[in-house]
């Protein structure tokens, strides 16, 4: 608590208490990391919405959550070291001294059917972040052995796909679930909800803040059903009711309908959201695990339409032209 020098009057003591409380509210509560590591820079007051929520609005790109390849068992593919599971396409562990997320004006680029160039705004976090798998501490994914064996066998038939069963869900223009997407994402807030718009696959994800519970267990969704609440500057989102058609990465090609996630979106500064997600899928893993990512705000970015069915040639490229056009 703020202590004032010398003898203080009652008014001065009350002022000290109020100032201490205000200063405390500036420090975000982030996942397992110490709060100080994600504290906003000195002198930065985080903006709030008219109804008092920390303002999380804007268009952001996200990276980091796919960094799973520290473990050699995870890094080696079904054919061992010659067939790596985690190739550069999804290798996210930053190994250069200047991380992609630090510095304004940097161009973040997503190719493939991604967004293309996004220019980052604001300096971003001052201290480097640990991204990718953060729990368990040994960075070994806690697979059920029989499920790990099944997915490695599954992966043997994916490149190229042996049949429609082995084609990635979002290659068929399905909604991508929570993980197969680096953005850009537009966050919009109302008093009752936080809404995330995704340019990729052009979907809307609604996080209810009104305290209603999850929908009935018979309702199964690609994006799950999300309920959220604020813990200081962290939006905590509980998502359930997934169907069995989502994946985590190319090399974790399916998650089950038992999936349940807890996401923590910590507003560290007006242009940065520290992100951590707990993945709890008891059909595939022996325990929940956590991976960390980072959202950075884009400058002067306009979301565009992405209608996957407009001109998708994926199935023709994989299986050839059908006998009748």
């Amino acid at each position, binding site marked *: 608590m703020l202590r004032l020098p010398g003898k203080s009057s009652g008014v001065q003591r009350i002022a000290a208490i109020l100032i201490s409380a205000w200063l405390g509210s500036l420090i975000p509560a982030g996942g397992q990391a110490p709060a100080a590591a994600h504290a906003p820079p000195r002198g930065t007051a985080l903006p709030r919405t008219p109804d008092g929520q920390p303002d999380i609005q804007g268009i952001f790109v996200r*990276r980091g959550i*796919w960094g799973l390849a520290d473990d050699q068992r995870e890094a080696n593919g079904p054919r061992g070291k010659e067939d790596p599971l985690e*190739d*550069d*396409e*999804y*290798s*996210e562990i930053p190994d250069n001294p200047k991380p*992609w997320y630090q510095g304004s004006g940097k*161009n*973040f*680029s*997503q*190719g*493939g*059917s*991604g*967004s*293309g*160039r*996004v220019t980052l705004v604001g300096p971003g976090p001052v201290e480097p972040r640990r991204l990718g798998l953060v729990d368990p501490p040994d960075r070994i994914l806690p697979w059920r052995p029989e499920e790990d064996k099944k997915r490695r066998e599954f992966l043997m038939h*994916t*490149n*190229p*796909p042996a049949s429609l069963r082995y*084609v*990635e869900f*979002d*290659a068929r*223009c399905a909604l*991508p679930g929570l993980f*197969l*997407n*680096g953005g850009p994402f537009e966050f919009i807030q109302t008093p009752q909800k936080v809404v995330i718009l995704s*340019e*990729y*696959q052009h979907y809307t994800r609604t996080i209810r803040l009104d305290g209603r519970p999850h929908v009935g267990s018979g309702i199964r969704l690609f994006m799950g059903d999300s309920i959220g609440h604020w813990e200081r500057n962290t939006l905590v989102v509980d998502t359930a009711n997934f169907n069995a058609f989502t994946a985590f990465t*190319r090399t974790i090609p399916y998650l089950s309908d038992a999936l349940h996630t807890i996401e923590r979106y910590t507003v560290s500064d007006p242009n940065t959201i520290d992100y951590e997600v707990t993945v709890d899928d008891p059909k595939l893993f022996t325990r929940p695990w956590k991976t960390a990512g980072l959202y950075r705000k884009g400058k002067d970015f306009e979301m*565009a*339409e*992405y*209608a*996957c069915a*407009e*001109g*998708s*040639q*994926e199935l023709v*490229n*994989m299986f*050839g032209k059908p006998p009748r056009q």
Partner: protein
Amino acid sequence: MTHKRCTVIAALSLLFLAAPLAAHHSFAAEYDITKPVKLHGAITKVDFVNPHAWVYVDVKDADGHVTNWHIELGSPNALFRLGWKKDAVPVGLEVDIVGYRSKLGEAVANGASFILPDGHVLSTGGSAPANSKPEAKN
């Protein structure tokens, strides 16, 4: 456009691709990283559609036989933000294309870059892995 500036643009194009990519399907599901292709031909059609733009090119082989190749690019949104204009590769333009062949062996390729007649290199914003750098010049 000087040669030096083209080299800088080519280098910058590769730099933008140095960030890990996100795509709606695995590159390796459809294309073969061990089969790079270098094509020269005239553009016959350009389709700015999602999820991938496509450019169609008539390529003549040594015997004079013409094959119409289908070249996959990034999404239209990605292309416009990488600096492509709608007439960047107009029909009739003779271009060099560097990319990777389809696993089905068809005349289909994932395009990595286009080299225009003036030497300017256009990145396709495609899904080829970041650590692959096919030669942009013959």
